């Protein structure tokens, strides 16, 4: 595989509004492999980048169903199949007593899937990433807003993309080494 010498070109903006406008224009110009970085969540920014499928709710739903089934079947198997114990003459499969733990396991699995599903979909933890090579990128967690066009974009061409981003009037612009 031929390796592009550059990971992409990154432009820095002063405000959330400037970033969202720039993201919109870049996406409309036909760039598909782009990303934006901000110190806090900006409503609608991901949609401007062409992100429409958020799988987190589905992961949480599946986690919850699996958790509920695990909780119930575990209790059923342990109390009625593997080692049946007669407790106060109650039936082995005394389902009303199993509801609480089933509920707890549903929430536990759903919560764990929400956290780890989100991290996995985001590809985190990832301590190294090429964008960290840009010294000014440290401001992305503080008060600056960044837009990047990846070199893997079909429309990417080093000089043309640089000029296009320059036309968006960023505060600064830099190439991201890979």
């Amino acid at each position, binding site marked *: 595989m031929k390796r592009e010498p550059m990971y992409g070109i990154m432009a820095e903006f002063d405000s959330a509004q400037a970033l969202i406008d720039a993201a919109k224009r870049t996406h409309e110009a036909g760039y598909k492999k782009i990303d934006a970085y901000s110190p*806090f969540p900006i409503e609608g920014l991901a949609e401007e980048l062409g992100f429409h499928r958020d799988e987190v709710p589905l992961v949480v739903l599946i986690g919850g169903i699996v958790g509920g089934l695990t909780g119930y079947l575990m209790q059923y198997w342990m109390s009625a199949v593997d080692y049946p114990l007669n407790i*106060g003459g109650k039936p082995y499969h005394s389902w009303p007593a199993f509801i609480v733990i089933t509920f*707890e396991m549903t*929430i536990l699995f759903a919560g764990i899937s929400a956290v780890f599903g989100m991290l996995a979909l*985001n590809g985190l933890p990832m301590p190294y990433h090429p964008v960290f090579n840009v010294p000014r990128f440290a401001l992305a967690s503080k008060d600056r807003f960044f837009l990047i066009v990846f070199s893997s974009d079909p429309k990417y061409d080093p000089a043309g993309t640089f000029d296009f981003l320059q036309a968006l009037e960023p505060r600064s612009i830099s190439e991201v080494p890979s």
Partner: protein
Amino acid sequence: MTLFAVACAGIFPAIHVGRPWLAYWLFPYPSTMGVWPQFRSPLMWDVFAVSTYATISALFWFIGLVPDLATLRDRSTNPATRIIYGILSLGWRGSARHWHRYETAYLLLAGLATPLVLSVHTVVSFDFAVGIVPGWHTTIFPPYFVAGAIYSGFAMVLMLAIPIRKIYGLEDFITERHLQNAAKVMLATGLIVAYGYGIEAFMGWYSGDRYDAFTLWNRLHGPYAGLYYLLLICNIFIPQVLWIRKLRTSPIALFFVSGVILVGMWLERFIIVVVSLHRDFLTSSWGMYYPTRWDWMTYIGTIGMFLAAIFLFVRLLPMISIFEMRTLLPEAEVKE
């Protein structure tokens, strides 16, 4: 932000669950004896409720910190702290797609944690309510424990937040409105707790059960009667001053009322546990409870451990979510 404070306040008590040395028997692990826990017992429900609650609170708290840890990583000038915060922040870089999934996950987690708060206190109360001891065996316990938990939880949050707000000059973040809303929640849940006491007393009389009636009589006239009246004063009468707007907006008054409520909630547990048990069905098991040196040491030790954890947290990590505060800035507003 209040949610964040409540999550933090909720996580530390979870550390202090009693740990007798055979506590692991409560978990369904494949033991050599081939037996499994007895799932029809509320004690088992409690194990699952508390451990789920602790896990979800810890995850909720940590995930809320990840973007702030990234800020700390980028701001630190010392390589060691940079590496530590760098590892803890999981390589967070604030990508728009990441933020989108993050917010969905955080919202869902908050939604899942809310019924969990109700369930954990309900299940704790089952430990009592399923028992046959008079004073425990009552269906009012689950709702009244949940209300009591929110009541004392807000009192604890206020007792921590008021000094922190003053010392660190956070009046702009923890505003008068937050304090006032917390006071209103305490007032409302306090009235639910008062209703719980009322129903307990009423059922003691109305049930016609001699043992229940005796428990009520014993609370009002027994050897621990003074504590019961103190409970009513602390949890029901004094908090009524929160009807006065002026006191609701005064941090000092709120601090003292919160302290009184915490004492009251401690007395409530004492009355439920000790006063119910010291006059059991069998007169042969009657007695008086005097705390031993170890009881006192455990009690003081848990308070110390809680305070140590809180102080370390305040010192090392952002106590108010940084990125959530940023979204409130006018610069964060965007129009489509």
